[in-house]
Every structure is written in C-alpha cells, then in structure tokens.
C-alpha cells in the first residue's frame, strides 16, 4: 500500500520564478493538505482540498494556489518566488469522513530552494 508520494524531492528556483509541486495521497484517502516547513520550524498549514475544492486556508498569500484532481491527487503552485519561500513543502492526506478520528499521513516532502 503506497503512502503519500510527492514530487519532485528537491528543486532549485530563482526569485520571481514559479513552481509546481505534486502529491498523490495514500490509497483510499480523499483529502489533501499542504504544509510549509521552514528549517528548524514546525509545519505551517497552507490549505486543504476535498472534492476538488479548497476547504480551508492558512495565512498564506494568494501567490500560493492549489488544485485537486478527480483522482484526489493535488498540486501546489507558488508564483513570484521569494527567498523566504525556501522550505520543505509537505503534503498530507486523510479521509474526510473520519473527521475527529482520522489522522494525517505525511509524505516526505519537496525541498524547495530559492536563490
């Protein structure tokens, strides 16, 4: 049973560029959440997708956008990259119907470096 898979694992971009990160949820899961983890910090919630709609959003600017596909996979897009966007981007999947009793399963993340 494959867990949460993310791609790419590492990437380097320059300021002002755009990046797309991809995530495939754990088999059977229908909800995808994205987190940003800066070096030495805890993960920070970016947004969550269920039924191809953004359900919740954290305190991140509109430069951060996402999408969920019918097969439940998801993309995170970041436009106009800033140096401060350098971080590990984590995708987590869950099952919406288990609200209150389910858990988040995290992928290993995509390490983004902005030069």
């Amino acid at each position, binding site marked *: 049973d494959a867990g949460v898979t993310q791609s790419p694992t590492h990437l380097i971009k320059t300021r002002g560029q755009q990046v797309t990160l991809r995530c495939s949820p754990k088999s059977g899961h229908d909800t995808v959440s994205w987190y940003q983890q800066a070096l030495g910090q*805890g993960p920070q919630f970016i947004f969550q997708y269920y039924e191809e709609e953004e359900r919740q959003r954290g305190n991140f600017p509109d430069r951060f956008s996402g999408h969920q596909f019918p097969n439940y996979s998801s993309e995170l897009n970041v436009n106009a990259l800033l140096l401060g966007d350098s971080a590990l981007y984590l995708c987590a999947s869950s099952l919406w119907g288990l609200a209150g009793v389910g*858990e988040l399963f995290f992928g290993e993340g995509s390490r983004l470096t902005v030069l």
Partner: protein
Amino acid sequence: QQQVKQSPQSLIVQKGGISIINCAYENTAFDYFPWYQQFPGKGPALLIAIRPDVSEKKEGRFTISFNKSAKQFSLHIMDSQPGDSATYFCAASQYGGSQGNLIFGKGTKLSVKP
C-alpha cells in the same frame, strides 16, 4: 501569533531515561492534540494523540498527559532509546485530525545517548 508553544527546544537524555516535552495552547476551541515524530529527511509521523475528555493516554512507552484547565499537554517517553532520537512536534486542531488544519509547535530535538 504562535498558538502552540513547545519546550524545550532541545533535549539530551541518557538511554533508559525519561524524556519529557511540554506544550501549551491558547485556543480553548482546540479539541485534538497529536504528537508527531520526524526523522531527518522524512515527513512527520503520528505518534500518539489525545482529546480533551481524557487526562492521560498511553501507548507503549509513550504517554500524553493533558491538563485542560492549564491548557497544557506533555509527552513522556519512558525507557528512552537511541532510536527515539528525532524531532518531536506537538500540535492542536479545532476540527479533529483529518478535516482541520493542525497548528504545530516549533519542535523539540531529542537526542538519546547510549
């Protein structure tokens, strides 16, 4: 504004000792308090979680103690082993584990010396 405060930032424990990590929260609407373990190069993995209707939950060597009135909760690792060396994050959520976003603490880097 940080909603979950975690301490200490780092912790060194001898093999066989007890590791204790503390967290405090502000939002009384939080109803789910998990602890995550993260090894270098890996994503966080759920270790144990508790809800505010119980004061303690134990799973193997890991115990969560929860004090609702003080708005604090802690992780105790009994008989700490070198394999427990990792970064531990406490978190809190208002809507349960799978639907709501998690608010994480800043993490505690645990080193267990042989």
